[in-house]
């Protein structure tokens, strides 16, 4: 089966004064139709930049992004706009991702109008109702402005906007991190149901590892602009191979006070992006480091069961 999204050696540079930093430094990943893929890593490791490059909200500096086999980095403005209905995004903070001067109706109707998906007023109305009900909102909320909605309702509107064009692929940029705990689980269940109902592929960005495990079939772990480990979610969570992933997973809280677990506390900060080490980016903080890790970049190698890791161990 052909992947719906294929990222090949993606790099993205930002200019900071005279210096150039590589926020994303050679990421490759593939997402198959109907598959939920998690992208985890600490703040600033390039998760969001990766997603924005995949959707061409940012232009990649190097590398290719293929959508259903077609190189979308070559698309011109018009072609890109027409194709946008097939790949959408749900943003982190619903308080800023909805236009404060648009009613819910206007926010949701816009993508349909832009892509000519509702020819008549009746068709438009049906589509709006269907989508709003699909994300568990009452149709009367269509007439509300964002400031008249709760945080959870706003995020449902954000999700409705993303799915109303029946996309093949949706990038979810920490869609639950600005919501409180009780709403989080509702939104996650909603996302899970929508995915199976509509057969969409997800790129789910999060540092909530339990959420990733709940939703995703495969996981990519990023550190310092690179993918350090990838594989099926169960493999990664039960047998993490990269020392960074091990540290990350040990930070998941266990809801049982009697159980104790060895926490791996990382020391120090990730290296500055202004001054990248030549070898493994995790060298300074790694408990299993060897002398050779310092100057050599570990290759991404297959350790079986579809599990890949960028570590010499």
């Amino acid at each position: 089966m052909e992947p719906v999204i294929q990222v090949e050696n993606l790099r993205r540079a930002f200019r900071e004064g005279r210096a150039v930093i590589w926020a994303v430094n050679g990421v490759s990943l593939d997402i198959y139709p109907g598959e939920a893929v998690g992208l985890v890593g600490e703040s600033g490791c390039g998760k969001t930049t990766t997603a924005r490059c995949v959707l061409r909200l940012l232009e990649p500096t190097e590398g290719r992004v293929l959508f259903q086999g077609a190189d979308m980095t070559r698309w011109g403005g018009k072609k890109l706009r027409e194709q946008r209905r097939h790949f959408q995004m749900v943003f982190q903070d619903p308080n800023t991702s909805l236009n404060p001067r648009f009613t819910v109706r206007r926010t949701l109707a816009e993508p349909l109008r832009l892509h000519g998906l509702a020819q008549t007023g009746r068709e438009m109305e049906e589509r709006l109702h269907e989508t709003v009900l699909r994300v568990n909102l009452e149709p009367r909320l269509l007439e509300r402005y964002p400031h008249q909605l709760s945080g959870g309702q706003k995020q449902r509107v954000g999700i409705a906007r993303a799915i109303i064009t029946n996309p093949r692929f949706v990038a979810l940029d920490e869609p639950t991190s600005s919501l409180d705990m009780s709403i989080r689980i509702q939104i996650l269940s909603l996302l899970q149901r929508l995915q199976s109902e509509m057969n969409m592929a997800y790129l789910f960005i999060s540092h909530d590892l339990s959420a990733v495990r709940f939703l995703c079939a495969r996981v990519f772990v990023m550190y310092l602009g690179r993918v350090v480990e990838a594989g099926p979610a169960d493999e990664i969570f039960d047998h993490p191979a990269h020392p960074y992933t091990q540290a990350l997973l040990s930070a998941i809280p266990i809801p049982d006070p009697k159980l104790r677990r060895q926490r791996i506390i990382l020391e120090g900060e990730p290296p500055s992006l202004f001054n990248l080490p030549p070898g493994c980016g995790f060298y300074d903080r790694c408990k299993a480091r060897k002398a050779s890790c310092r100057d050599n970049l570990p290759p991404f190698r297959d350790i079986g069961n579809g599990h890949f890791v960028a570590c010499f161990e």
Partner: protein
Amino acid sequence: MVSETIAKPKGAQPSVRDSRAWRTWYILRSHPSMIVGILVLAVILFVTVAGPSLVPYKPLKPDPEARLLPPSAAHPMGTDAFGRDILSRVVNGARLDLFIAFSVVAIALGIGVAVGMFSGYYGGKVDDVVMRITDVILAFPSFILALAITAILGNSIPNVIIAIAIAYIPYFVRLTRGEVLSAKERDYTEAARCVGNPNWRIIYLHLLPNCLTPALVQATLCLGWAILDASGLAFLGLGIRPPTPEWGVLVSEGSRDIIGGQWWTSFFPGAVIVLTAFAFNLIGDSLRDVTSPTEAVQ
């Protein structure tokens, strides 16, 4: 598997308090200076529209019998050196002064906001050039600049309007640009692009309504300044010439009589200029307070 619960709509039930009228009243009640400004402006607008048919004298008709009469029941603001009734001239001048003020602001607002949106949205070299041009214009006091431009363009009402408008454009450019710079970084702009909006739709449908408020407040303040500037130019003999009844012209003509003790010929037109500018400024200042983020009624 976690069962999914249906989110019930909560909070924010529409009520009387959400209505536009109620919110307007709420804002007004806590800003008495805005009420004063609006009342004064209402009187001025009424006089502008209905006044010329209410006053008993023609603004341009001299009366040799009634030269330089002090204020009285027959001539509430007195008469000038040609025996013309000052009140009639002031009332007839309102139309011209308000026309100039509104034209100036319409032009400056339209061009300034359009340039500011464009410059802020696209950034880069275009933005650099636009900003340097506004720097140059802002380096001169707006009145001096308007003076120079009128002197170059020549004396006519359209030229006065153009000159003052040019001097005001940079304020609108800068305000709008600043708003766009922050609004375009917000997620809703990115979301608008993500659903397939072309740039022009993002600028005019998504960003403009969210960036217009400061410019509208500025526009109200500029209405007051424009009246001061237009009558200032006329006072100096630029732009509008006597015997046209215009407030600046009236002050200028009357200033000759002050030495002779006939204070009323320039006092009353001057007072009306001040009052009008004051009314616009009261409204503008209150609008600025009301629309500031700390007092957002949303």
